[in-house]
């Protein structure tokens, strides 16, 4: 089982596909879950505190807008953890809206820089492309090592 970063990181369909084919999806749900389930004094639990944009400085410079840094505080550690990634470009809003376009650019760039195996796909526009899309995802995931951390 490999840890696969999914982009858009909010896509439940991609997350499901990765899990269904035997790997662990790394996405927004995981990053946010960790924050809201960690015991703290905030009630209701906050996804993001003013500390996050500071932690995000590891991934984006101080000149970068605070919202980008706050987002990177969630996605940055997941990208570091990832052993593979699936990037879907030109995705529909409903497929997994990521909010900030600048963060999206930085995430995709960081993934490409990381040297991990990456599958880049264009969002399908019809049923035939949809079938090919799923087949490509399956083929990519089948090629990933089954043991965690394996080469």
């Amino acid at each position, binding site marked *: 089982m490999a840890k696969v970063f999914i982009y858009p990181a909010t896509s439940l369909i991609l997350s499901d596909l990765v899990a269904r084919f035997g790997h662990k999806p790394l996405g927004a749900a995981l990053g946010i879950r960790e924050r809201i389930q960690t015991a703290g004094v905030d009630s209701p639990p*906050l*996804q*993001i*505190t*003013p*500390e*996050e*944009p*500071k932690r995000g400085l590891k991934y984006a410079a101080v*000149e*970068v*807008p*605070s*919202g*980008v*840094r*706050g*987002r990177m505080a*969630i996605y940055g550690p997941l990208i570091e953890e990832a052993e593979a990634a699936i990037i879907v470009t030109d995705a529909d*809003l*409903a497929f997994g*809206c*990521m*909010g*900030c*376009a*600048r963060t*999206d650019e930085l995430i995709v760039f960081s993934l490409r820089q990381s040297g991990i195996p990456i599958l880049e796909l264009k969002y399908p526009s019809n049923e035939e492309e949809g079938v090919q899309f799923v087949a490509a995802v399956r083929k990519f995931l089948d090629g990933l090592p089954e043991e965690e951390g394996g080469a």
Partner: protein
Amino acid sequence: MSRKVRIAQLSCGPEYSGVQKEIYDAAESVDAEVFFPDIALADVERGVDAFGLDVRSADLKLMIARAMALVEGKVDADGVFIGTCFRCAEAAIVRNELRRYIHENSRLPVVSYSFTERTTAGTLLTRMEALTTIARRRALLAREEQTGITMGVDSGSSTTKAVVMKDNEIVGTGWHPTTEVIKSAESAVADALEMAGLTREDIQAIGTTGYGRFLIGKHLGADLVQEELTVNSKGAVYLADHQQGSATVIDIGGMDNKAISVIDGIPGTFTMGGICAGASGRFLEMTAKRLGVDITELGPLAMKGMGKNVPMNSYCIVFGTQSLVNALAAGSSREDVAAAACHSVAEQVFEQQLQEIDIKEPVIMVGGTSLIEGLVHAMGQLLQTEIVVPPHSQYIGAVGSALLASGFIKGE
């Protein structure tokens, strides 16, 4: 208990910047509730297409669609808060265009803000208060004449002003530097009453505004405690005798600047702030001190100089001071340096704030800095218009408070 004022939030990034809670807290403290206009995915696609601004960010697309839902009346709101990350160019474009769109196509008051992760509820409070005032007190803000005997006190960051008004005339004024907030107010009030030949017992209603408004309001038992955005708008159009139609009010204060687009005396859109004290009255105070003149002499001095002879275009009071010292060391005249400082402040207000509201004539400058002739001249040159500085412009907040407070005289 009155209904909470409903403020629609159009934003990108506050939850990821960690400031969403601050927005909620600021709204809560003025008995307002912030909500996100509920729309369908299809509305987003349709809205973005119809609006015609092709942005990449999905959250900005959502903002556009939500703004359209508000304008089209599909979602009810009393006011709109637009917030995006400071430094994001794409968001700045959307923020500006949406503010203009809502302003031109609806009667909803709009305030916008670009936040950092350090934005606090306190910073947002005045803006939220202004939004709720416009929504709640339209009838009060429609008041065009002062009646009876009322007093207004403006406890600002640099100076405390008091004005006594009687039957639509200013009969007493007081002006003191703000040191101890209550003591300064007491001194200003005493001066105003003495000039008016009246006593505290004669005053039928009191209004307070400015940074110290809550403390002074409690101390004086004020009938109206109001933020300076609405109060200054009202005071400006009253003093300039332009209560109907459009106007633009510019108030360069000690701590922050206000640029307000006013319609019939009621603020439509406004910006408050400025990134740094380099664009405020504080910088001019500091310049006067460095040049060895009283702040009242800075304006006439600047009028004799040529600002273009001195490079000074800093966005920070520290670097501004550095430019100033360098210019003097390089042999620039005091007149030129004074003119450059005035031009620098005017230019920053023009670039940072006036770009965010629609400038409609007349442009009225108010507050203590409106007495600095060089600053008014520089602003007029930048805007290519004659700037109106009404009489008593330095007492703007106090006059606005006294005017609005007359709505609280018993029997009114």
